[in-house]
Structure formats: structure tokens, C-alpha cells
């Protein structure tokens, strides 16, 4: 089955992104495919690479980025959600004359059209949070 996962919540504030992460791993291990990960609203914080956590805590952002890289997943943050929360790639950072890039390496910035496209291409769209 082809899944798209929409993540609406932030790590360390909600358990939902961790559930989404575990679902993604289980689906892939079960032979299913993931068409797209879509991080929406405060969910964009899952794709912020400028995070530091205590040694005995899970760095969810790093975990997501590694999973995305390992399985070559299509991963997207909603542009309007992301830039107002300081999650910026190189081009957004330059465009808005800011001095840092915070978007995780393996995630792209895109619009809600990518969510509609994902819904069309997937058998199931599952929302977390």
C-alpha cells in the first residue's frame, strides 16, 4: 500500500510525531511504500536541524532526517508554516535576508499543492497530531 503521512505536531510537545515516525518505520519494514512525508503547522519543527537535546533524550529531528535519507523518502515542509517558525532552507534564508539555514538536509520546502498531489497518488493519507 502507498501511504502519505501528514505530521501536524511538534516533537517534545506531542507524542504524535513519534507515532508517525514509528508508523513510517513499520510500514516500510512491512513492504509498504511512503509517497511523501508532509510536515504541516508546528509539525515543521520535526525538520529543524538546529536542535540540541540532552544525552539521554531522543533527537527526533536527527532520527527523521536519517530515516528519510535511508529510504530516500520524499519529505516536505509547508512553506507558509515553515518560514514563520524559522525553518528555512538556503534560498528562503537568502530571499528574506536572514543569516542562518535551519531546514534538515533531506527535506524540501513546498506548498499545499504537494499535499493534494500526495493525496491523489497515495492509497491512504494518515494524519498525526
Amino acid at each position, binding site marked *: 500500500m502507498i501511504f502519505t503521512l*501528514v505530521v*501536524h505536531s511538534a516533537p517534545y510537545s506531542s507524542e504524535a510525531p513519534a507515532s508517525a515516525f514509528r508508523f513510517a518505520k513499520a510500514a516500510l519494514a512491512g513492504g509498504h511504500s511512503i509517497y511523501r512525508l508532509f510536515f504541516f503547522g508546528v509539525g515543521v519543527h520535526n525538520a529543524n536541524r538546529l536542535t540540541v537535546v540532552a544525552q539521554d533524550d531522543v533527537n527526533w529531528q536527527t532520527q527523521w532526517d536519517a530515516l528519510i535519507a535511508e529510504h530516500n523518502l520524499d519529505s516536505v515542509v509547508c512553506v507558509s508554516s515553515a518560514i514563520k517558525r524559522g525553518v528555512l532552507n538556503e534560498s528562503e534564508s537568502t530571499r528574506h535576508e536572514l543569516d542562518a539555514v535551519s531546514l534538515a538536509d533531506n527535506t524540501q520546502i513546498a506548498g*499545499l*499543492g504537494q*499535499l*493534494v*498531489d500526495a*493525496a*491523489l497518488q497515495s492509497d491512504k*493519507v494518515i494524519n498525526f497530531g
Partner: protein
Amino acid sequence: MSDQPTRKTFLVLSRQAPYGGYKAQQSLDIALASAVFEQDVIFVFLGDGVFQILSNQKPGAINAKPMGGALETLQLYGVEEVYVDQSSLDARHLTQSDLVVDAQALDNDKLVELINGADCVFNL
């Protein structure tokens, strides 16, 4: 991928009151984007979501943009199936005359029918 559908039915269940959280706005954004991309969109105000369409909102006092007006844009974007859950209104002592949007009243049987009939449900 040529056998993929180009049109699906998107059901948006909007359950959060405006201003206190951000999901009311997000449910609207999903509906509008889906409509722009020529999908069939059904929008339901459910639970505390019915507070989004109360008339006479003045959220400027808390630096927020009024949601009632934005929801009228659903119809401008071609989202014609807009429902409000009657039992949610009843539980909050509200009637259709308190609302800014002309939404069709919905009962539980119809809600079940909409969920079963949708290709994709966004429950926010």
C-alpha cells in the same frame, strides 16, 4: 502512474475553535488548496469548530484575523458542500441565526455517510 485518479473527494472535519489554536486555520487552508487544485471538497464544522462561524467576531483585539470572513471564501473557491453539525450547535446553545456562513445542518447518519464516501479525511 497513469491509472492514478486526478480527482478525489476530500472531507475536512474542522473541530477546533478559532484563535486559541491554529488548526482551525489549517483545516481551512487544506480545503482551499484542495479546491484550487480542482478536488471535490466537503467541509464540516464539528464540535468546537462551530465557534469558527459565529457572527460578530472581533479578534483584532488579540491581533488575530477574523475567521468568520475567511470561511465565506470557501464558497468563493467553489466549496459548495459546507455543513455544520446540528448536535454540536445544540450542545453549545447556538442556532443557525448565530452563524455567519449559510451551512447545511448535519446529523450523525449524514456524517457517517460523508466519512464513508470520502477518499481522504482530514480530521483537525
